[in-house]
């Protein structure tokens, strides 16, 4: 059934996250006290919780609610939310525990700032706490989206969201190295699993023909029959098992315990680590019920259960103990999913709920202990019950539930687990092993729970501790889930909860599951096994003082942790090895790259010379002759630039070559690009000469000396590489030119539609501005980025690295005209001409912008023309004076204005036409076009051309500024400029140029 309202819980969390994010950056966030912040922000999950409750009756009645949005229709991807029993169960857990955790966190962080020297709190500053709420609400949103997702793509997006936000939460105490390491490891593992998951989900979607879970869940037979089934299953399992901390990848979870306690309670017990379990339960109807499924998850889950229970028992740190018991419990859940029996899915949902209730309570209690007693090491704790009676009561109830003792909910979870393990459907090979493993794990987990209560709260009070009770909301938060696990056991069977669990189990199993929450089912095998487990556990507890030290000696490295460290070391080693191979000689790299590329093209690309039919016409026609001449000039000029020893002359030869290309463009005939080529070539030369003047003369002389004294073998090698590259290039170009079709597939479309669609006569302009407007936006963005890079390189990075610019060398008489930017003084006539050039360039630029759509020329040309005029000013007036005289010349502002205008014009078009970057003739719209001269329009194209011109001017001037005057920072310049201006106004100082005359 379609339902709009299931998106609302997600929106509630998003608003909460947004509010927290704003409070992080706004000054008002500093004035709200942390507890109040917690209370306020807890409203978001509370609303989500209530909304889900309101939706749930429909779902419990057997309906599946769907909400969807066209996301990428061309790829057949819809963003879908889907609410069924499983989603409701998880959604309620996520939002419900979310309320408690957020409220608790308010007091937790307040306590933190109150005891700055203790435990967790070492690196906190009071006002960073809004940041925590921001992260945790973002996480909550991702987690809620994950369990509500109705298609694999949405699921994956939110899945990654939980990985990233949990990284932020684990690394919350970012000054703590252990926290950073733990966070990185968690991200590394769950992120890697995420990549595998994506691949698996794509397989599933491709095979079932849809990304929607509705379709996927119905195509189970198809998927299971596919020969890709093992691959799919392995990839998805990799994602799910890493996320749910299954052996052997479980080691990230204890490492992630460096997160603040509320985050640990939330992410690492109740929600995120269950995402993998959720995913497996979700896809079980489609991928489950095979032998592979059974063995994969039973074995991994069983192993994880035992490892977690065993390693957890020897921990001294309360949080680590709980982390390992969580690992153990996650193993139980995965193992249950592997069994395809009704009772297994009953056990699954009961265990999920029971574990979420008692484990989140215990984690929150640990946070309280840490704060109020100052440590969470069991060896230093004891007798807390007197100082912290309420916390003790909470811990006792939650601990009893964890131990699996009646009358608590945890008892039911353990009973159903044992019932599953002894179910007749279990294959005979493992029918003893499963129950035995469950009993051992049960005993160890009971002992773990006992450790928390006995060693933490009972026993002797320690004189060196001064514990006190936490503020009431702090113990109330864990009390609620703890009491809930008591209530489910003691109160008469709650009908609604049983229905909810049944609905969840039904969704996961794919068939009807009955759930009854009665604790007492008579004397049967599970109960007997349970008694064995309890006795074993109690016995373990009794001898714990002797057993635990002994366990310390047994190496606890039953994990991939070693492998992970090894992999990181291997990467480091490889990096070291690679840097050994590097000679550091850039030319050598280049040569190797070129040779390999050529070899690849010839070897793999089967590149060969085309059959060359030399149809020598005796007399080529006039145009061809012109072209040949131009080509010869292009090539010869470039060749000459190689042999000219003076850099300046070489640059000029290069200019000749570039300008001859413009001639070829005119012969094409392609007037638009010929114009651009001419102006850009000129600007290139200016920039090149600028840099040349910046390089010390003796440096250049030395480099030239080396270049010309190159040894013969070296020279021969370079010539051979160059000739080889030329030959490869010749093969490519001649193949392309001699065998190309003489008609185009695409061009006719542009030719026919340029005028009707964009009102442009200039087809090239129409392509650049309208048809491929987005490309052009990227292009000017790249050009702007180039300008900014030059700026960053020379002003910022250079200064950081402590580069010193030598004082300007003595004027070099051979290149006096370009001596630059500053000195010496130009003649009055030159200054006058320069002054006239600028307005003239404006007129030219304006005509290019206005007529660009009708005649040759465009925004680029306009921009470069203005930049060249500015360059003339720099040469003639010098940098300082130009800056004084042209106050509008602010490159960064120009770039911003240009890019902003381009987006504005495109957005206007989107508002009017519905398509970004579509042509709109504003003149026609508002009825002024008839007053405009022929060929001039007032349209998006005009705005866009102007935007391009502004960006190009900004970026080019930025390049000229920084390359021509690289020594000072912008702020210094501005300061100097304003000082100079002030002094000039007072007549105290005249500009250096003016004094010289």
């Amino acid at each position, binding site marked *: 059934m379609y339902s709009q309202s299931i998106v609302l819980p997600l929106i509630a969390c998003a608003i909460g996250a947004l509010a927290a994010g704003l409070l992080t950056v706004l000054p008002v966030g500093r004035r709200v006290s942390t507890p109040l912040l917690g209370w306020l922000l807890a409203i978001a999950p509370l609303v989500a919780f209530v909304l889900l409750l309101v939706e749930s009756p429909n779902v419990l009645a057997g309906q599946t609610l769907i909400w969807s949005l066209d996301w990428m229709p061309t790829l057949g991807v819809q963003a879908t939310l889907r609410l069924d029993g499983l989603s409701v169960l998880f959604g309620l857990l996520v939002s419900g525990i979310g309320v408690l955790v957020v409220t608790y966190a308010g007091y937790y962080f307040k306590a933190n700032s109150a005891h700055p020297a203790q435990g967790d709190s070492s690196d906190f500053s009071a006002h960073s706490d809004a940041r925590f709420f921001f992260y945790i609400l973002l996480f909550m949103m991702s987690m809620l989206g994950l369990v509500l997702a109705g298609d694999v793509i949405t699921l994956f997006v939110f899945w990654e969201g939980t990985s990233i936000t949990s990284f932020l939460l684990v690394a919350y105490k970012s000054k703590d190295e252990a926290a950073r390491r733990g966070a990185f490891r968690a991200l590394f593992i769950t992120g890697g699993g995420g990549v595998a998951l994506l691949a698996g989900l794509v397989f599933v979607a491709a095979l079932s023909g849809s990304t929607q879970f509705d379709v996927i869940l119905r195509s189970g037979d198809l998927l299971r029959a596919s020969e890709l089934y093992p691959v799919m299953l392995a990839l998805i399992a990799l994602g799910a098992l890493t996320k749910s901390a299954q052996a052997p990848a479980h080691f990230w979870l204890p490492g992630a315990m460096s997160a603040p306690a509320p985050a640990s309670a939330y992410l690492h017990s109740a929600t995120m680590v269950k995402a993998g379990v959720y995913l497996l339960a979700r896809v079980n109807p489609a991928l489950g019920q095979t032998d592979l499924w059974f063995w994969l998850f039973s074995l991994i889950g069983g192993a994880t259960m035992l490892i977690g229970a065993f390693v957890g028992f020897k921990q001294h740190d309360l949080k680590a103990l709980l982390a390992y018991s969580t690992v153990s419990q996650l193993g139980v859940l995965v193992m249950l999913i592997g069994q395809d029996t009704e009772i297994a899915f009953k056990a699954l949902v009961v265990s999920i709920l029971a574990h979420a209730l008692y484990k989140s309570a215990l984690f929150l209690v640990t946070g309280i202990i840490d704060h109020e007693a100052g440590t969470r090491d069991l060896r230093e704790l004891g007798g807390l019950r007197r100082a912290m009676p309420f916390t003790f009561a909470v811990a006792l109830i939650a601990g009893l539930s964890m131990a699996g003792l009646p009358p608590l909910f945890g008892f039911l979870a353990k009973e159903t687990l044992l019932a599953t393990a002894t179910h007749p459907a279990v294959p005979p090979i493992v029918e003893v092993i499963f129950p035995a493993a469950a009993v051992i794990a049960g005993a160890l987990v009971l002992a773990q729970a006992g450790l928390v209560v006995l060693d933490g709260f009972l026993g002797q009070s320690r004189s060196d501790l001064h514990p006190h009770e936490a503020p009431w909301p702090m113990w109330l938060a864990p009390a609620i889930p703890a009491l809930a696990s008591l209530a489910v056991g003691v109160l008469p069977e709650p009908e609604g909860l049983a229905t909810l669990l049944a609905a969840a189990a039904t969704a996961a199993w794919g068939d009807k599951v009955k759930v009854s929450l009665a604790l007492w089912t008579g004397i049967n095998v599970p109960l007997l096994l349970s008694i064995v487990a309890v006795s074993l556990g109690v016995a373990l507890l009794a001898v714990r003082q002797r057993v635990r030290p002994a366990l310390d000696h047994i190496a606890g490295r039953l994990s991939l942790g070693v492998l992970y460290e090894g992999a990181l070391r291997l990467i480091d080693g490889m990096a070291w090895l690679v840097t050994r191979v590097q000679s550091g000689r850039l030319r050598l790299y280049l040569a190797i790259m070129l040779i390999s590329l050529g070899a690849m093209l010839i070897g793999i690309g089967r590149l060969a010379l085309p059959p060359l039919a030399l149809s020598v*016409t005796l007399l080529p026609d006039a145009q061809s002759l012109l072209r040949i001449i131009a080509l010869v000039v292009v090539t010869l000029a470039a060749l000459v630039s190689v042999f000219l020893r003076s850099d300046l002359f070489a640059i000029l030869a290069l200019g000749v070559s570039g300008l001859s290309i413009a001639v070829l463009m005119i012969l094409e005939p392609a007037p638009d690009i010929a114009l651009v080529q001419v102006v850009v070539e000129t600007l290139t030369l200016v920039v090149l000469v600028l840099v040349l003047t910046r390089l010390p003369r003796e440096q250049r002389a030395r480099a030239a000396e080396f270049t010309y004294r190159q040894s013969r073998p070296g020279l021969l090698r370079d010539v051979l590489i160059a000739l080889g590259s030329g030959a490869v290039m010749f093969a490519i170009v001649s193949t392309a030119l*001699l065998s190309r079709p003489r008609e185009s597939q695409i061009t006719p479309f542009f030719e026919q539609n340029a005028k009707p669609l964009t009102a442009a006569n200039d087809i090239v302009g129409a392509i650049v501005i309208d048809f491929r407007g987005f490309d052009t936006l990227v292009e000017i963005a790249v050009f702007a980025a180039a300008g900014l890079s030059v700026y960053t390189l020379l002003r910022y990075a250079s200064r950081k690295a402590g580069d010193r610019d030598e004082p300007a060398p003595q004027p070099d008489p051979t290149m006096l005209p370009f001596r630059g930017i500053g000195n010496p003084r130009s003649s009055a006539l030159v200054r006058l001409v320069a002054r006239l050039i600028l307005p003239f360039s404006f007129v030219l630029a304006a005509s290019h912008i206005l007529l660009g759509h009708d005649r040759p020329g465009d925004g680029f040309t306009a921009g470069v023309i203005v930049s060249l005029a500015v360059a003339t000013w720099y040469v003639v007036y010098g940098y300082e004076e130009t800056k004084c005289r042209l106050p509008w010349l602010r490159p960064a502002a120009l770039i911003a204005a240009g890019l902003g205008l381009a987006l504005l014009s495109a957005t206007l078009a989107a508002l009017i036409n519905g398509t970004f970057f579509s042509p709109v003739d504003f003149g026609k719209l508002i009825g002024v076009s008839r007053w405009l001269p022929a060929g001039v329009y007032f349209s998006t194209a005009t705005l866009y051309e102007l935007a391009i011109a502004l960006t190009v001017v900004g970026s080019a001037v930025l390049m000229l500024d920084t390359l021509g005057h690289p020594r000072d920072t912008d702020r210094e310049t501005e300061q100097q400029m304003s000082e100079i201006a002030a002094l000039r106004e007072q007549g105290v100082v005249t500009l250096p140029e003016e004094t010289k005359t």
Partner: protein
Amino acid sequence: MIELFTALAISALFAIGVFQLLRRNLIRSAMGVAIVSNAINLFLLASGAYRGEVAAYANLAGQTARQPSDALPQALILTAIVIGMGAFAVVLALVYVLSLRYKTSDSDEVKGLRH
């Protein structure tokens, strides 16, 4: 015939550019970048499908019924020229920064990058 000539010129230009790129003198290497990008632009230009007689303008083509030049590669070249100019400026800035940091314009003396 003209195609063959164009192909020869483009590959010669490319070879010259590569040779320049391989110089020790960083300024010459930078010039090599410019030459190579010129060669590529020329290749794009030559790859136009039509033997153009008039420029690619909607009104010209309609009036004279003569073959306009291919507009598509021209639009590509327009972009390539501008981007090439930007990239070239960054290359030059790098040359300058290298000269500041290593006090040399000789690429073989710039070895500190490996650490």
